[in-house]
């Protein structure tokens, strides 16, 4: 997903001696492959990950790692394994999360199997670096998202980001990483932007895979930035792995009017975020998900109500492997026009 493969590869590379086949970037070919072998109304991330797996296996991988938990994600691997085996591939698929909990014993066993010289202390050390790397990346991403639409020189943000990630790959202690992060944050802040004080502000919420994998949302954020809109997105890996519980509890406390119980996957936090965007006078909410995402479909009526109560327009996108890109662009453009008109 997006740039997160960098910390993941970093961790694996440093704790055990294996050759990593990097998952190729998702392309139309990936989607076609995934679509071809997936059941009909499974949600889109299933199709994307299946396509990626096939591409990795074709490149010679013999072990696939997958993290999946919550709603349907947790069950993906078993069916995908069956589908791939039916296709004749030979490999080992390891899902590192069972029933929503990270399975530490299993991970330890697997690492031992791959590399007999593995030491726990070394593993923890690099895990610590990786966790920090993700945290820093998310902080930088957040800054980029708010400002990339206003960059004076095209691609200045993306080029600097690329440069930073390359440097991240080579760090070997936490202090070095921290210093790098500080240096680059300053550099990012120095990038020239031309941002009016009262620019349009839009919040993006929804289902996490679609939010975080730019290919699956047809580069929606890039498109929004081209309209000179400041973007707020809450979902990132940091939220997913470390802050989840805290935010869900906060969400339940702060939006009692709209919900009493915790709901599946990220639905509860989305309700809270929608309310947050309403209270903080954002101009609009964009809700994106893959088609057939049950938890998100279940809260859409609640989001509608919030949008109505706070008088903030909300637009929904359901992405599928067959979604037409032109259709999305037209709808986004119209959404932007509407927000502009409402400002006047």
């Amino acid at each position, binding site marked *: 997903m997006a740039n997160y493969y960098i910390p993941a590869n970093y961790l694996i590379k440093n704790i055990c001696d294996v050759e990593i086949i990097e998952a190729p970037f998702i392309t139309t*070919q990936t989607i076609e492959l995934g679509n071809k072998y997936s059941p009909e109304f499974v949600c889109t991330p299933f199709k994307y990950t299946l396509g990626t797996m096939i591409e990795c296996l074709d490149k010679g991988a013999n072990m696939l790692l997958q993290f999946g938990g919550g709603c349907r994600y947790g069950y993906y691997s078993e069916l995908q394994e069956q589908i791939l085996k039916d296709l004749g591939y030979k490999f080992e698929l390891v899902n590192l999360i069972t029933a929503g909990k990270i399975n530490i014993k299993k991970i330890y066993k697997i690492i031992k199997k791959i590399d007999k010289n593995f030491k726990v202390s070394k593993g923890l050390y690099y895990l610590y670096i990786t966790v920090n790397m993700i945290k820093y990346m998310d902080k930088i991403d957040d800054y980029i998202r708010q400002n990339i639409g206003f960059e004076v020189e095209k*691609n200045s943000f993306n080029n600097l980001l690329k440069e930073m990630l390359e440097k991240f790959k080579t760090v070997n202690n936490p202090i070095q990483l921290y210093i790098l992060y500080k240096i680059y944050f300053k550099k990012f802040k120095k990038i020239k932007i031309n941002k009016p004080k009262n620019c349009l502000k839009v919040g993006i919420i929804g289902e996490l895979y679609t939010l975080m994998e730019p290919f699956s949302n047809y580069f929606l954020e890039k498109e929004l930035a081209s309209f000179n809109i400041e973007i707020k997105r809450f979902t990132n890996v940091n939220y997913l792995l470390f802050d989840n519980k805290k935010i869900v509890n906060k969400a339940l406390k702060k939006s009692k009017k709209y919900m009493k119980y915790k709901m599946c996957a990220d639905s509860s936090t989305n309700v809270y975020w929608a309310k947050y965007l309403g209270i903080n006078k954002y101009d609009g909410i964009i809700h994106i998900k893959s088609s057939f995402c049950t938890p998100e479909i279940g809260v859409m009526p609640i989001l509608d109500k919030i949008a109505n109560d706070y008088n903030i327009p909300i637009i929904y996108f359901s992405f599928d492997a067959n979604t037409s890109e032109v259709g999305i662009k*037209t709808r986004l*453009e119209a959404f932007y*026009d509407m927000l502009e008109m409402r400002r006047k």
Partner: protein
Amino acid sequence: MNCYLGVDIGSISTKGVIIDENNNIITSAYIWTEGNPVNAVKNLIEILKKDLNSKYIVKGIGTTGSARKLIGLLLNANIVKNEIMAHAVGTLALYPDVKTILEIGGQDSKIILLNNGIITDYAMNTLCAAGTGSFLSSQAKRLNINIEDFGSLALKSTNPVKIAARCTVFAESDLIHKAQVGYKKEDIVAGLCKSIVLNYLNNVGKGKKIKSPVIFQGGVSKNIGVLKYFKEILNTDVIVDPNSHLMGALGIAILAKKNKTNNIYDLNIKNIDFLTKANECKGCSNNCEILKIYKDDKLIDIWGNRCDRYIKN
């Protein structure tokens, strides 16, 4: 005198309007796109020019509809906008107090809510072509009915059949079944009209507060059967303007007027050689289809690339 041209190029039809400084329509035209927007627009302009007095000079051109970008280049338009905005502006010019615009076109359907002349909310169909004009006409063909007679036939029915219309595939199999069982044709047709309305309200109109005055536009608005069920189910009057098909073109003409510069536009485009060449980029396995637009053999724009690689080459 100054005048402004608005062109709305849809998948099925192409519409053009020329207005004066006070938004009055000087002349208008409506022709089939027939899969070739460039030719359609060339023909359209020729028709419009015939009725245009030589005292007028064109001070602004706007394009909207699905081929807006391409035609925008062809005509050198000073504004290119999506059809939602154009329809809202066009309708507001004729009905300043409109609150709701329902639209069902050939490929898509939408709803626009307005308050005091400002768009406050809108939605478009998400699922598929179910309940749009192209679905209706393919079903009409299946039932061997002329699409023009569809509405009047529906009015004859007293007992419309219920048809599942959430998805084209389901609807079609259900329709075939109902026909095989021996329902009367008018009841099936009426059922289809009703199901389109229900589908629209449950889908596009879900959660939207529909307030009158309500205006119904798009190709399907010419179908009096569908109109009848809209009135019945919404329990309010629904207006269909005789010029409703021109709203998009009118709207974009008005927007072109608002956006005018000092440029003067030339409508002699008949002999411009306008060419789109497509080829696949081999840069990565995305294989983006790159469209290159040539005007009189000069490359003027490139579309379709997801990354910047192609431009560099």
